[in-house]
């Protein structure tokens, strides 16, 4: 009788406190072999949604409390040790955890230096050719694309904008080569905003196809300066580390004239972060030797490389050096191509 009464009490009463303790213990302790624990509930086994939610919240609070206590303890220890404290741990970032890419360029690699001395851009980097850029759109540009083209033309010195009018690219290219153009930029659009960019280096150069996103025209920038002047800007290329990145970096560098006019104090930046290339155009001023102020002029946009093709634009028969294959390349979060 008494036993049954007790068992009844245990099974039927289930007061709040008991349940809570059992769940905490189930969250915190591990079952050791050989010892018998009373049957524990885990939070997920409660059928009632509200109760389950409450229990879960309590569990979370407990965990957070423990974490804060641990942190405080560590901080006190660190302060107590003072100088002898172990160095602060570096948090893991995606850049830290990046999978090592075997095509990363070593600055002293002779093979790469030789390649770069003899590739399509060598003429530019040896100072033989001056960049001359032709900017055009797809058929019937509308809205922001036109403005974007115009602003790009102000940013890139020696750039000309021409309307497409339904001409085939394969016919435009020989004409451009005949007129000494070194670059062809085609901006594709989707619903009146630019969403694609084809950058073609003209005398037999590689063709890169990018996806364009987050375009901000000059009007839409906050705190922007006056219009960019005619001076040739400097170029900053950040984080292009692999072979492919190097090629793309040189592609961008060859857009601008070799000798920047420092009087103009303008700088165009192509910053690669996790395979996204951010383009910014600033005017800088050195306030003193340790401080520089920058003011953004000009459009800003983000590029993501979709494909790189050897030779001028030929999507059917061209030889593709690199194509973005989503399933292979986007599968790993820590693997980047550029």
């Amino acid at each position, binding site marked *: 009788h008494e036993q049954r009464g007790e068992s009844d009490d245990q099974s039927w009463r289930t007061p709040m406190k008991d349940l809570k303790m059992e769940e905490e213990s189930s969250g915190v302790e591990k079952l050791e072999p050989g010892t018998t624990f009373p049957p524990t509930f885990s939070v997920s086994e409660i059928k009632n949604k509200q109760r389950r939610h409450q229990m879960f919240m309590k569990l979370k609070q407990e965990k957070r409390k423990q974490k804060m206590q641990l942190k405080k303890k560590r901080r006190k220890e660190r302060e107590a040790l003072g100088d002898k404290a172990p160095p602060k741990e570096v948090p893991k*970032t*995606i*850049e830290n955890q990046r999978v090592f890419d075997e095509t990363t360029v070593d*600055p*002293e690699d002779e093979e790469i230096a030789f390649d770069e001395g003899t590739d399509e851009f060598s003429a530019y*980097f040896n*100072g033989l050719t001056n960049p001359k850029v032709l900017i055009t759109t797809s058929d019937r540009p509308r809205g922001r694309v036109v403005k974007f083209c115009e602003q790009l033309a102000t940013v890139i010195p020696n750039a000309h904008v021409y309307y497409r009018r339904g001409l*085939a*690219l394969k016919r435009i290219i020989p004409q451009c080569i005949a007129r000494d153009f070194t670059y062809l930029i085609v901006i594709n659009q989707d619903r009146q905003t630019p969403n694609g960019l084809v950058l073609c280096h003209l005398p037999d150069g590689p063709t890169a196809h990018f996806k364009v*996103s*987050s375009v901000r025209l000059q009007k839409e920038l906050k705190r922007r300066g006056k219009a960019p002047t005619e001076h040739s800007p*400097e*170029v*900053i*290329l*950040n984080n*292009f580390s692999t072979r492919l990145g*190097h090629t793309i*970096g*040189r592609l961008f*560098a060859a857009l601008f004239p*070799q*000798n*920047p*006019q*420092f*009087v103009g104090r303008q*700088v165009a*930046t192509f*910053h690669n*972060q*996790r*395979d*996204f290339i*951010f383009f*910014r155009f*600033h005017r*800088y001023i*050195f306030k*003193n*030797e*340790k401080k*520089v102020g*920058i003011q953004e002029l000009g459009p800003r946009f*983000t590029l*993501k490389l979709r494909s790189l093709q050897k030779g001028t634009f030929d999507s059917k028969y061209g030889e593709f050096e690199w194509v973005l294959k*989503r399933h292979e390349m986007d599968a790993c979060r820590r693997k980047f191509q550029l």
Partner: protein
Amino acid sequence: MQHDDVIWDIIGNKQFCSFKVKTKSQNFCRNEYSITGVCNRSSCPLANSQYATIREEKGQCFLYMKEIERAAFPARMWEKVKLSKNYEKALEQIDENLIYWPRFLRHKCKQRFTKITQYLIRMRKLVLKRQRKLVPLSRKVESREKRKEEKALIAAQLDNAIEKELLERLKQGTYGDIYNFPVYAFDKALEQQDAESESDAEEEEEEDDEVMGGSFYKSLCLMIEKVFYSERVFPFVQDVGQREFVAEDEVEESDLSDFEDMNKLKTSSDEEEQDESSEEEEEEEVQASRSKGKSPANGSLVRKKRAYVEIEYEQETESASRRRTT
């Protein structure tokens, strides 16, 4: 027995025809054998026991004919004739097959055939022109990429990176003498002095202490002098004690040309700076700029004129005070 009029009476106006499409102004016929698409007494394939059409399959045109003798055999009702690809020959074929047929059907067949050949020609031309390929965007992928881009933007810290890079370039002297911030020139000169003192120490090992002491003393003197004159922007030691009076006019005319000259001077060294240069190149450049700065001809001229510009204010007050005294 085929009673065309009765059939037309029924389906044409009074009762239902499943091929008829009614619109506000006109009725159309959806029958595949209809020669014009309009619902008319003369162009209804059901209400005419003698009928002809042109139909096109995969670029080939066929002439279909229906005769009253075969009205009882629905499987064999339509007679199909393949027309030649040559336009004129095909027209002759139509004429030949539809000889003695009502004028209306002959005319309409030829018209239809003409239209069909025209659109086939246009299709063939379009294939040769640029073809637009529509690529579908996957919504999930797009939103994923957008999010990744935002995170990458935050991780990039663009403003900091750009500022850092610009300061690096200033340090390494890519801008040459455009900006004269005394600390860097001072550092450079110090480094030069240290290099000299080290080389001296290596060469003359006998008189170690004295030489080192002497060079250190020299560098100390330099430091003091530079701190004293830093406001007046005299970074180079050679011109410290000397005073020269330069006329106003000269400076203003040639000031700009001097800057241009400086730019030209720097350009040859800057070509290499444009690439992601290795450290070796940068060091060479720094040395080059140092060597350029060392030469008194360019450096001192520029220095004096710059200094003059800064002292302009003082001179004006002086002249004013002179006038007062005189």
